[in-house]
Every structure is written in C-alpha cells, then in structure tokens.
C-alpha cells in the first residue's frame, strides 16, 4: 500500500494540520463566550434547562471524531492511496525526440528525423502495458507532444507528427524538463530516453545527473558545410552602396572547398571559391551599388548532408534617399546647402508652381506663403508674418539666439549664440509644439508634430542664409536636424542580416537609446527582447524576419538559417544505450481513491444527519413551539 500523490510525511503533516484546524473549530464552537447582560433574573429558569443540554453536548465528541475520520478519508483519496506493491506499478518514461536542425540532415538511410521516429516507435513497442510515456520534441525548446499516456495510438501520432526545426538542441533544458515531468507525474519514474544525432551547440554543457538516462543514438552524417550568416549594410556616405558579408563554415572532419555563388536582383556576382579546414569558418565580402529593391541570394554549390544551410536569401529595400521639393525664389542660395547632404534628392520649384502634395517626402517653403496648406511634412524658412503656419507673436530686430534646446535631438550639436540676427519672428507656442531656438522674447525656431491629419511642420522664423548666420556651421546642422525630425526613416542606417534561428543578438551604437529600441517580426508583432551591454538579445524558435528599430537605425535580422550544432554530445558512461528488453505485464496496483472519497463523504453526511440535522430540527421545533417574539413585542409596545 502506498501513496501516489503524497509522501507519508506530507500526508501526516496535512492530516495533522487539518485535524488541528477541525478540533480548534470544534472547541471554538463550544467555547464559552463572555457576554455582559442587563440582568440575570430571566436566565435563572433557562439555566436549569440548559445545564441538561450542556451535559448532553459533552457527549458530542463523536461529532468531532466523525468529522476527523471523514477528513482523513478524503485526504487519503487526495493522496491517491493504492493497494499493492509500488514496484508492481507501471513506470513513467519520457521520450526526448531530437527535432533540432540536425534532424533534417539526410543520410543514405533517409533523414535523421525519420530514423529517430523509427527508433522511438520501436522503443514504445518494448515498454510494458501499464507504463506511460511522455513524448517531448526537443530542439531550442522542449515542447511536450503528449501527456503521460500508455495509448500507443496517441504516442504514434505524436511521433509521426514531429518535424525538423531550425534551432539547435538545448539538451540541458530538455533533460531538466524530462526530470521535472517525471517528478510531477506522481508515478514511478522510468527511463528518460534521448533519440537523436547527439549534436549540441556547446562542447561541454552543464547537464543534470540523470541515473535513468537511456540513449537511442542515430548516426548523423559528417560532411556538412554551410552558410552561418549573411549580412548587408548600407554605406554611410552613399545610400545606394551596399556591403554584403557571407560567413561560411566547414562542419565536417575533412577539408572542404566551397563554391559560393551570390546574386542580387538577377545579377550574378563573380563566384568565390573558399577553402576551409575542418571546423574553419571564413567571411566572404561583396560591395555593390543599387538603388532598386531586390533579393540577395547566397548559395553553396553542390550537395551535402544538410541542405537547409546551403542557401540564404535577403530582401533589400530601395534607395533610402529623401526627396525634398523646394519652393524658392532663390535656388542659387539654397542649392549649396541642400546639395551637400548626400541623403537628399532635392528638386527646386518656383513658388508659382506650388502644389499641396508634390511627389516628395518633404516640402521646403522659402520665404513664401502657399495658397493652400501643404499635405506632406513641411519646412518653412522665414514665412510671411500674416500667413505663417505658426502664429507670430511679434517681430524683433537686431537680436540673437539666447538658447538652443539641445536636450532633444532637434538641438543636437547646436551651440552658437550671440550671432546677430537682423530680424526674427517670435512664435507663440502651444501644447505639443517644441521650441528649438529662442531669443530673449521667445521661440524663433519651432516644430509642430503631426496631429489630426495635419503633417509635421518645422518653422525657422528668420532667414538663416542672410547675414552672419550663413557663415556659421550652425545653419547646416539646424537644417539637418530639422530634416531628420521631419523624416527620420530616411536617415536611418540600414543593416540587414540572415542568421540562424534561436538566440540572436544585435549590437547597438552608443548613440542609440535603449528605451527607443523596438523589435517586431514580419507580422509586426512585438518580440520580447532584452538589452544588455548595448546589445539586443532575443530568441525565436521558428524562422522569422525580425526588425529592430531605434532612433536613427533600422536592422533586419532574417533568422531563417538553421542553427547547426557543431559538437557531439558525449553521454555519461552510466547512461544505458539501445533498446530495453521487452517488458512483461505485471498486475497493476489497485487505485482506492474513488472508494475513499465516497467513504469520506458518507462519514461526513452521517455526522451531519446525526448532529447537524438534529440541531436544525430542534431549532425549527423550538421556533414553532415558541410564541412569536416579535408579535409579543408589538403587544408590549402598543399597550
């Protein structure tokens, strides 16, 4: 006889607590309570009657005993008391089916995963009829595919439905999960069976000690080489120039010569031949110029055992230049300033050619007031006072900038003060508006965020290209800051890379603020991430296109390459290997919990019938026999 759910100590502890509680409640119910009354004269006749009742109550310890017995029986039911020897009870096995990237490798006998499935199926056939098995698909995560079950149909279906994943095997997590599952099952622990090629990403993982570990190894082919990473970065100086890097590795034990073919948008680059020693990895770099969107494909020629890491694809966006429509009567003055910024594609128009929505990202309005408000982000220089997009409070003459609001990115790098300004418009400021520069009378450079369909607007209340200001470095910096604020996407540095599924990292620049980092997948769902030491860390268990954005940077992680584990796991010597002998059928222990639960409920019901119900009957009888007290009270009052 043994408990399935609780140890003897746990059972006795719980029984002690419950018994103590019931006894305390019993004694509390019968404890004398003190009560101050106005007089004792009416109690004396009642006391005589109650003493008899009190003596009767002294015999009610049977009520307590029955309650304790009922509770004990219910607790035995919860503890799942079983009749028979524990050894005769079936065991609970955990079958770890390796579905990591290596399981997709192909050998002469078929894919590794198919070999694993056959081995797992054979193992399930060897276990006893009363044994239960939990199938766990183990890759980067350990995911149970079944509960503990002895149903061969359910097990077969779970094994057959397993597919290869892209992540590497996290063996430590899988074994820990298996141990926990066995301890929680409440049954007699059986084997923890690992079925797979024993390929792990780290040479010496810290694994829990498992005495009941059994290995069903599946031989994995050794001749693999593949692409570990491919990344593309846009040149800082020229947005149409891209630098691509492909990292290839030789996983086999023999030297390999790789023929790497790369193409972009149908244009094939010159193939590269890379010689790799066993275990060696090399980087291959490409530089190309394009302003169109397209796919960058890197592919290793020939076949090896693992095909999924022989090809990597990246999708590149079109040119990142910002188009600016400039409406000005003095293009010769503005042209040197705007053309110096290589990220801008500037088109000059006469003010008479104004349209509210030109084919551009930003509109610059130089000393003019358009007949209709702009419908794209707009940048104003010294607008006429009457038609200014921001209300002008006053016009001041012979002034100078007193402060640049450098606490935001808008004022970054702007420090020059005391530069004389012949005339400046001082704007009113409203909720949401941001002052960039102020003179003594108020803001003279101000931005207004987009709201209610109104596009972003930046306004300079003086002519920075007139007077001393045109010789200051402040002027191009101010233009750059305002243009960056108006179209931040266009100024982001773009990085795109393809990497293995699983844990991914991306280093942040020191200028990037962690609180501005956002990580989303291809469906624009947020992905959980952490930032440690200016590095974004995230995890995906399936191929995903991850987008990491921050202040002025945008990265794409194409986590579509398989995470190929490089090392072979050397199992502990105590681990058994191979299939067990066919286990015979033993008479299972008898489960008693249903009977115990019924008995416990019955005892509590009997106690209630004898004591609880009788008390209710007595109360009803006394209520029926006693004259209605309220009626008497009314009688006393009314007379």
């Amino acid at each position: 006889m043994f408990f399935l759910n609780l140890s003897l100590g746990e059972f006795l502890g719980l029984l002690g607590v419950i018994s103590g509680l019931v006894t305390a409640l019993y004694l509390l119910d019968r404890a004398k309570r003190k009560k101050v009354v106005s007089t004792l004269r009416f109690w004396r006749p009642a006391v005589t009657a109650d003493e008899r009742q009190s003596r009767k109550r002294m015999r009610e310890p049977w009520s307590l005993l029955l309650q304790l017995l009922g509770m004990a029986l219910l607790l035995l039911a919860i503890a799942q008391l079983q009749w028979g020897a524990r050894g005769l009870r079936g065991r609970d096995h955990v079958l770890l089916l390796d579905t990591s990237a290596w399981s997709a490798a192909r050998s002469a006998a078929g894919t590794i995963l198919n070999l694993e499935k056959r081995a797992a199926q054979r193992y399930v056939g060897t276990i006893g009829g009363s044994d239960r098995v939990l199938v766990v698909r183990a890759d980067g995560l350990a995911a149970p595919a079944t509960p503990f079950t002895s149903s061969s149909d359910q097990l077969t279906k779970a094994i057959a439905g397993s597919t290869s994943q892209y992540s590497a095997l996290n063996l430590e997590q899988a074994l820990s999960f298996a141990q926990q599952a066995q301890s929680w099952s409440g049954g007699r622990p059986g084997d923890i069976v690992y079925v797979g090629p024993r390929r792990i990403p780290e040479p010496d993982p810290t694994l829990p000690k498992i005495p009941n570990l059994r290995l069903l190894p599946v031989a994995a082919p050794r001749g693999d080489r593949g692409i570990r990473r491919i990344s593309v970065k846009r040149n800082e100086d020229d947005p149409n120039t891209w630098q691509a890097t492909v990292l290839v590795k030789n996983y086999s034990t023999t030297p390999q010569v790789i023929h790497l073919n790369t193409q972009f948008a149908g244009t094939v680059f010159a193939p590269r031949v890379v010689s790799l020693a066993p275990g060696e990895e090399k980087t291959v770099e490409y530089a190309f110029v394009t302003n169109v969107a397209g796919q960058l494909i890197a592919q290793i020629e020939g076949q090896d055992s693992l095909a999924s890491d022989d090809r990597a694809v990246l999708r590149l966006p079109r040119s990142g230049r910002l188009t600016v429509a400039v409406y000005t009567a003095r293009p010769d003055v503005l042209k040197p300033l705007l053309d110096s910024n290589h990220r801008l594609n500037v088109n000059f128009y006469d003010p008479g050619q104004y349209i509210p929505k030109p084919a551009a990202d930003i509109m610059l309005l130089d000393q003019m007031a358009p007949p209709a408000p702009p419908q794209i982000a707009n940048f104003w220089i010294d607008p006429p006072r009457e038609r200014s997009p921001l209300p002008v409070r006053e016009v001041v003459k012979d002034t100078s900038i007193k402060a640049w609001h450098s606490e935001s990115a808008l004022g970054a790098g702007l420090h020059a003060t005391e530069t004389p300004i012949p005339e400046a418009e001082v704007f009113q400021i409203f909720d949401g508006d941001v002052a960039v520069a102020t003179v003594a009378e108020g803001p003279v450079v101000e931005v207004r965020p987009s709201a209610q369909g109104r596009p972003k607007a930046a306004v300079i209340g003086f002519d920075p290209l007139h007077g001393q200001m045109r010789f200051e470095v402040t002027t191009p910096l101010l233009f750059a800051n305002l243009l960056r604020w108006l179209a931040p996407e266009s100024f982001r540095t773009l990085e795109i890379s393809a990497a293995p599924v699983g844990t991914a990292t991306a280093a942040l620049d020191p200028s990037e603020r962690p609180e501005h980092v956002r990580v989303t997948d291809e469906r624009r769902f947020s992905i959980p991430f952490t930032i440690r030491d200016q590095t974004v860390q995230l995890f995906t268990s399936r191929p995903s296109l991850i987008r990491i954005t921050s202040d002025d940077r945008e990265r794409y992680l194409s986590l579509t390459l398989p995470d190929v584990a490089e090392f072979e796991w050397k199992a502990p010597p105590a681990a058994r290997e191979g299939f067990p002998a066919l286990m015979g059928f033993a008479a299972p222990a008898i489960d008693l919990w249903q009977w115990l639960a019924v008995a416990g409920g019955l005892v509590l019901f009997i106690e209630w019938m004898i004591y609880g119900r009788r008390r209710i009957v007595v109360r009803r009888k006394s209520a029926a026999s006693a004259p209605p007290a309220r009626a008497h009270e009314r009688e006393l009052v009314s007379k």
Partner: protein
Amino acid sequence: MAERLIDRAFLERLERLTLHWKNSFNGLVGGHNLSHFAGPGQEFLDHRNFHEGDDLRAVNWRAYMRLEKLFLKMFQVEPRVPVRLLLDTSASMIAGARPGEPTKFDYARKLTAALAYVGLVRLDNILLQPFSQRLHDPYLCSGGRHRFQPAETFLRELKADGKTNYLETARQYLENYPQKGLTIVVSDFLDDSDCIRPLQYISDFGHELLLVQVWGGEDREPSGKGEMELIDAETGVHVKIALDDEARAAYTDGFDGYAAQIRKLALRNGGRYVGLPVSMPIEEAIFGPLVTGGSVQ
C-alpha cells in the same frame, strides 16, 4: 460643542403636544387638566353662601341686588401639578444593546428630554430626577421653552453607573416629594430585586404613574449560541449557561411576563405603561405609543 439630545425640527413638532394625566390632584392641576376642586382661578365653578372671612371680591353683587343675599362665586383652581421625570441611571442601562442600536441610557435621556420639553412648553413644572441605588441630585425647571437648554445640558451630563435599588429610591422619593403629581419613570426596570412593590408604594401615596420601559434588542431576545458566560452589568455576577433556541425562548417568555407585570401595576393604579424597544426611533415613540396611549396629546 456637545451634540444635542434632540434636534430643532423634532422640538418644533413637540410644541403641539401636552402632557396628560388621569387623576385630579387636590388643589393642584396643570393648566391643561380640569380640576373638580374649587379654588382661585379664572373659570366659574359654582355658588355658595357667603361666610365671614370670605373674599369680598368673589361676591356675586348682581345676585345680592336681586335677592338681597350674599352669594360667593367659586372658581376652578389652576395651580401647577408637578411633573417628575425619574430617569434610571444604573449600569444596566448601558447593556443589552445590539450593534447599531443606541444604548437604553441614551434612548431614555432623549425620551426624557422630549417629555420635559413638552411639559415646559405648556408651562408645567418639570423635575428631572435621576436615580440608581438612590435618588441623585435633581434638576427643577419651569417657565417655558427657553428653560429647556439647561435641562438638556443636565441630562447630557448624566452618567450611567451603579446598581438599581427601587425600594430605597421609592422611600427617598416619597420622603422628598410628598406633593402628589405625575411621576414618569423611564427605566428598563431590570432590578434583581423586586421593583413592583416600590412602585406600588409610590402609587399608593397618590402619585400617578407613567411607566416607560425601554429595552435593547439583547434584553428581550438575546443572540448567540452555545456555551456562554453571562456577566450582570450591575452586580458583576457570572453565570455559565449553554444557550440554545429553547433557552432563548424561555428567556423571552420571562422578559415578556415581567413587562406584563409592570404594565398591570400601572393600569391597576390608574396610571399608564409604555414599552419601547430602543430600535424604535424617538420620534416614532413619542407620536406613536405615547400619543396613542394618551400620555401626551
């Protein structure tokens, strides 16, 4: 500023009421109760023959001119009947209230204040007489509603303490107040010794009794169940009992029987009895049982 026992709105309602009593007291009557006795007054009662020494101002000179005989006009007397309010201030008055209910003492003080105000408005002489083991210092007020404020202050400053001793109280009462009048006793009448006989003595000496019994919810229908230790609020005596529904019913029977005895005593002696649970609002008590019972009208 201490909280008032009665608010102004209630006082305004009380101004319509008058204290009433059944008996006529020889030589004494309140302004609102007719007397069968002759004496100095405004209302004509009868004629009698003139005797030497009679007041010539009461001679009916018209009758003398017609009949040449001296007849004296007699009038109804209109002296003030003393109204004495005996307020129980024993410790039992602060026991027996259920949660949310006022104590009997608070309830009795408010009721006493209301009755005193009714009397003052009608220019009755009101004596507020607290008692427990004996009579405590009284407070006499008369002369109209403006004398109510000190009376209320007196009531507010009373404290409930000590045992009840009706026998000693009655003895002192009869000794101190030989002049008959209306005696209103506001009490729970829960004295371990007998209160029937002392009250009978007071009545026997010609005082008209208006017995107002107040009780808390616990006084009449005690709550709780199981083993209990009961402590008498006045004597501190402990009694251990096992309380159940039967015992509770027996207790309530005992209480009701006792209240019936007090009521019987009042009615037998030409007085009145009113029983008031503290759960009944004071306003309802005044305009309900006290008005319908004829104690105030």
